[in-house]
């Protein structure tokens, strides 16, 4: 039972990540593969501050969000100069840079070994360390992220993002500040991912963080669950998270040895991603299938 609660918590965290990435890819149409970096920066910030400096968990959230947002502003500014595939490469490079920093900045992140003994969340007298409590907390997180995303999507800002996705030139011609809109999209997306990161570190990570949870593969995993569940739809990433993480959890019951379990999982989601891009690029629930005018 504890195992399924753990799976449920993971689903909530990754669903939150997928929903936040959806703002960027599904609504604003900007493909970014550095989401794991936003997630990781905040997770590390929370981990370091709570474990080594005895900060209260709640106080670490703004720190994580600010750091990720800072990076997001940089990337957002870059996205103005870079066409779609250039942006993907730029975010790829940024992801790799962040990963290397996590690996090599021994004084702060303890490198490959990572950070051990992250204390559980202590919130106004509630110590979140039982599986059930962790699950509830993750659900609350997911709910907050979904609510925020819902508000964004239904707002004028969300409409403008979708307009930018469809035809950026017209939005500029209409007099809207595309620059600020894009930067804001990145910041919003990164902040939500950062929030997920701050929750992840003391809970689902089992009190241990290391760089391997935040590499390019994780970024692609988040994209995969968004594609599979559906881009451009609020609940798409949630469905994607449910499907992929249950797949991962279910593999356990097939008695697959641990060494190859990770490989089979990655193989599976890579394959499903490719198949879905061919057959149904907008995903199961999605509305945005990367369709549009072919660039002449």
């Amino acid at each position: 039972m504890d195992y399924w609660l753990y799976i449920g918590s993971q689903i909530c965290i990754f669903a939150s990540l997928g929903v936040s990435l959806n703002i960027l890819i599904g609504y604003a149409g900007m493909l970014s593969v550095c989401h794991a970096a936003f997630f990781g920066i905040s997770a590390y910030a929370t981990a370091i501050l709570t474990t080594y400096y005895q900060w209260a968990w709640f106080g670490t959230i703004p720190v994580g969000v600010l750091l990720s947002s800072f990076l997001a502003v940089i990337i957002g500014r870059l996205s103005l100069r870079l066409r779609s595939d250039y942006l993907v490469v730029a975010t790829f490079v940024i992801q790799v840079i962040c990963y290397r920093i996590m690996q090599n900045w021994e004084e702060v992140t303890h490198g490959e070994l990572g950070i051990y003994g992250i204390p559980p969340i202590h919130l106004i007298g509630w110590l979140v360390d039982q599986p059930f409590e962790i699950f509830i907390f993750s659900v609350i997180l997911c709910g907050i992220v979904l609510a925020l995303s819902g508000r964004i999507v239904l707002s004028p800002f969300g409409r403008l993002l979708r307009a930018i996705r469809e035809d950026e030139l017209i939005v500029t011609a209409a007099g809207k500040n595309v620059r600020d809109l894009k930067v804001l999209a990145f910041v919003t997306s990164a902040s939500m991912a950062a929030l997920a990161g701050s929750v992840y570190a003391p809970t689902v990570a089992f009190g241990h963080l290391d760089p391997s949870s935040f590499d390019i593969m994780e970024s692609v995993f988040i994209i995969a669950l968004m594609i599979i569940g559906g881009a451009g739809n609020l609940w798409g990433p949630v469905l994607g998270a449910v499907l992929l993480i249950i797949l991962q959890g279910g593999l356990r019951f097939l008695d697959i040895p641990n060494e190859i379990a990770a490989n089979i999982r990655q193989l599976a989601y890579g394959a499903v991603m490719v198949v879905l891009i061919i057959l149904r690029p907008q995903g199961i629930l999605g509305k945005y299938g990367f369709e549009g005018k072919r660039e002449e």
Partner: protein
Amino acid sequence: MEQVIANILVLSARYTLTALGVSIIYRFSGCLDFAQGAIYIVSAYCSYIFAQILGLPLVIAILLGAVIGATCGGFIDFIIYRQIRKIARPVLSVLLASLGLLICTENLMALSFGEASRSLPLGDPRPGILIFGARVTEIQIAVIILALTVPILVWLTLNRTRFGLMLRSYGSNYMLAASVGIPIKKTFLRGAVLGSFLSGLAGTLITLETSISPTMGNEAVLMGVLVTLIGGAGNIVGALGAAMLIAAIEGFAGTYINLLWREVITFTTILVIICVRPKRVFRGKGY
């Protein structure tokens, strides 16, 4: 100092070879094909099997590995990319699909051969030759020579053959090329095979000296993509120049600044270059 320069030359040779496949494909299709990294790995492992397990002579193993890579590339184009091209805007879809393929292939290789690195033992480790005060091995010299000759061959193919003309036409204006009657599927397929052959060749050659592991396709294709973007799509001279630039940054950063942060410094510099990219330095397919 001479050693640093020699290392930079070898490194730029590797990056040039790795980038050729990606560059050609980007030139005619407009899509960044990360699956070239998958082809890189597959060819490397195939050569490993041929040379190590089947005991074939090295040159045959390399060529066969590249040919298998080319075949895989053809299949990928035929089965996967062709379907995606039916969508109106394939650039991002192909990119994502190629990332997915890269992941699949990496893990397939890891499942088949294990996560650990393997190396092709090429006899006793040789000390190499001393040239102008720097030490290079025979293989490194071979790689450098190939990095100078293969691009010339590719340039000739691209600019002096009918096939190259077809590729360039699609690169320049897809709709017009299709309307004029240049066969779409055949051209794209042959282009994919050519690019994949080059990537496969790069994969087998470079792993001769270093070891093979399932994840090396990631870094390889990333470097290939970066060289292509900085050097210009399908721009052979540009690719050479960009490869040398990146190798020089990496070499000097590693030697004179800090070995540990070498990659971060290199990537950050490349990022700046990509964003600030002066258009007149390397011409290419466009921004």
